[in-house]
């Protein structure tokens, strides 16, 4: 009997409460509808406000440069705040420092580490409407704030002007063949980089630059870098894979706009090509467990570089290795040493091997923000077999090499003076060349640089241009370079 009574009572209760339940559902529905309308209204108002042009920051007293208004974030009022309101308008960025409170030290005023405690103003998350609307560049990056999953974006531009003799222009025998007596954008590079996930980091660089071919000047789009690095491998190893500037020698992995001089040293352009060694493959690095820095690298690549290799197949891959170490002699003096090797096959299926050594020294006096003196140099030896008639080395083997060295003095933060000396043989053809290149660099800020240089080159053989037009043995060139960076802050490396 009880077994029937209990379910019966439950059914009666449910039936009795059904109208009230239905009413609740209806009320909830109305409430949700009302909230939805409110949200829509707020969204529309927000979009309208965002669409208005931002008022310019108030010009500070005296007509100095506008500066960003800044606001201190509200501090928890554990104690009366120590007010330090500025009495007068400031020349620099306006500061309204509502200073931090004086928390009772015996008890932590806030729970640790919670993101909710971060007192930076939280940027509103972009809505679908935001994404759909047209944006000025970086408008999305502008919204970056706590909780946003965005990568870093940086853009660098490198503009070069050259002046040289008429015969050098005709022969296209200058440092930038075909670009003599021109102002040209050598490299405009968009860099995207960041964490892919907890285990890997990714870098993609897309480059546009002017290239001269058959007297025509066209823009060429290239992807010099698109690689990922696995960061969490065991035994202090990492693997970098994709398309990359090989870590071969000291300057090969340096981008055009970041080179210590306007041009790459002659020995590198002669043996690795004007763009250096850029390959598709993988590099494994290991940092030794020693008190000083010692990094070893092994790499396997296609061998696409036609100047040095060119086989372009993993059936006969290009193998690279590099060992780099670094010593801080004291707080002011430091030195880096490296040796590199690369071996692969040429398009004619002959072995080609490059061995290099590099050294770099810097003097940074205590308390200085920049080096006072930098001295660096790199040497390269190449051995390869070639198929040419009139072989001077009998068996077709070419054992050639070259080197460069430079010194730079930077007595002031913004100004640097230096000179580079080059000497190199030609990798295949007979002959050699030497060059000297003094230069002055002026950096108004970290993000803008101007460089003026002069380069004198002497060759043992004349370079003749297309259709035997002109010849160049003695070359004098003036370089002017302007480089700038937009976006992500560059990291200066030794």
């Amino acid at each position, binding site marked *: 009997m009880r077994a029937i009574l209990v379910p019966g009572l439950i059914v009666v209760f449910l039936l009795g409460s059904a109208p009230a339940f239905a009413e609740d559902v209806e009320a909830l529905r109305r409430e949700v509808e009302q909230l939805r309308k409110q949200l829509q209204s707020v969204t529309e108002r927000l979009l309208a406000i965002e669409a208005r042009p*931002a008022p310019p920051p108030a010009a500070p007293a005296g007509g100095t440069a506008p500066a960003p208004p800044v606001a201190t974030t509200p501090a928890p009022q554990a104690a009366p705040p120590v007010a*330090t309101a500025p009495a007068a308008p*400031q020349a620099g960025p306006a500061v309204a*420092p509502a200073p931090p409170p*004086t928390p009772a*030290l015996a008890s932590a005023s806030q729970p640790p580490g919670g993101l909710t405690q971060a007192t*930076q103003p939280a940027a509103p998350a972009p809505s679908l409407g935001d994404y759909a609307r047209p944006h000025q560049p970086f408008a999305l990056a502008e919204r970056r704030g706590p909780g946003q999953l965005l990568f870093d974006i940086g853009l660098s531009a490198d503009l070069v002007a050259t002046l040289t003799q008429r015969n050098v222009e005709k022969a296209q025998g200058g440092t930038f063949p075909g670009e003599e007596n021109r102002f040209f954008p050598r490299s405009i590079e968009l860099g995207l980089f960041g964490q892919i996930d907890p285990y890997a980091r990714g870098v993609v660089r897309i480059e546009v630059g002017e290239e001269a071919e058959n007297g025509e000047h066209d823009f060429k789009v290239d992807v010099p870098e698109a690689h990922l690095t696995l960061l969490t*491998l065991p035994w202090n190893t*990492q693997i970098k894979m994709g398309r990359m500037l090989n870590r071969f020698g000291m300057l090969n992995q340096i981008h055009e706009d970041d080179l210590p001089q306007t041009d790459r040293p002659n020995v590198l352009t002669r043996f690795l090509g004007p763009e250096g060694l850029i390959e598709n493959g993988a590099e494994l690095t290991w940092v030794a467990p020693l008190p000083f820095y010692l990094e070893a690298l092994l790499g396997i690549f296609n061998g696409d570089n036609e100047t040095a290799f060119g086989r372009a197949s993993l059936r006969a891959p290009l193998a690279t290795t590099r060992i780099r170490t670094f010593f801080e002699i004291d707080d002011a003096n430091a030195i880096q040493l490296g040796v590199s090797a690369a071996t692969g096959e040429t398009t004619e299926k002959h072995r080609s091997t490059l061995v290099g050594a590099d050294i770099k020294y810097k003097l940074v006096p205590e308390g200085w*923000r920049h080096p006072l003196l930098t001295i660096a140099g790199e040497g390269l030896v190449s051995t390869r077999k070639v198929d040419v008639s009139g072989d001077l080395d009998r068996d077709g083997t070419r054992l050639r090499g070259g080197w460069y060295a430079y010194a730079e003095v930077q007595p002031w933060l913004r100004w640097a003076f230096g000179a580079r000396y080059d000497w190199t043989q030609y990798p295949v053809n007979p002959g050699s060349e030497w060059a000297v290149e003094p230069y002055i660099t002026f950096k108004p800020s970290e993000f803008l640089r101007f460089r003026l240089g002069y380069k004198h080159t002497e060759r043992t053989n004349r370079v003749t241009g297309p259709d035997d037009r002109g010849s160049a043995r003695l070359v004098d060139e003036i370089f002017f370079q302007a480089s700038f960076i937009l976006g992500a802050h560059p990291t200066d490396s030794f």
Partner: protein
Amino acid sequence: MRRLLGLALALAAVLAWPGPAPAADRIRVVATINDLRLLAEAVGGDLVEADTLARPAQNPDDLEVRPSHMAKLRRADLLVINGLDVDAWVEAIVVGANNPKVVPGAPGRVDLSLGIPVLEVPTVRVDRSMGDVHPAGNPHYYLDPGLTPQVTATLVDALARVAPQYRATFEARRQQFLDKVSAALAGWTRTLAPLKGAPVVVYHKEWAYLLARFDIRQVDTVEDRPGIPPSPGHLVQLIQRMRDEKIKVIIVSAWNDRRTAERVAADAGAKVLLLAHGAGALKGTDSYFDLFNYNVQQLADALTPR
């Protein structure tokens, strides 16, 4: 084939070599700047072996990455960063150190700026025409001893992630340290209390937290834009303003352009005051307490009317 096998075995042996034995299994902490290293030592005591990437006299805002930094970070169990972009260079070191314990997202790294009340957060879009501004706000919070409770609480959590068995020890040491800081802060506050509201000019805006803590008024900067040498026009206006408002002190750090500051000070009838931008930056500022003792005393001496 045998030669290849031998080479592979030798390589495997080298890779598997664990390296020198750690000093009594202590937690190896590497901090980006020296002040954070001192806090890690205060909380971790003899359980940690702490080192720093930027030397005390270096400008943490402008560090050149060196392979020696990577060698230090290679064996770290915990990486302590300041955050707010001042030590963003650490990412290049992390990539070169081949240490999975400290990569982004790993438990072995901590950003001590989490949870602190950040000063001077830009409220409008910033760009480089304003100089080398920090979009996330002023990063020099380590110069405010009043923020030690929050910063050390975050640090205890991080150390406990690496060595959970010592959490109670870390917390006890933190409380001992905070007791000392509390007593010292009371003394520093007493010393500077008569100078509340005193106006100063700073070369670079790295003193915001220190000055705000002790209610000293930062009126203007020698740099009209952070990180960019001041324009002559700005200096002329600054000198006039200092004369009009009777501002007698320009605060500089070791890497600021002292000559410019001294020229402005001479023309404005003021003096240049060199403060320590961090522990160990100047002689006699090696410890956490030495740093504030020195800076507070220097401020008191310079601002007290004679």
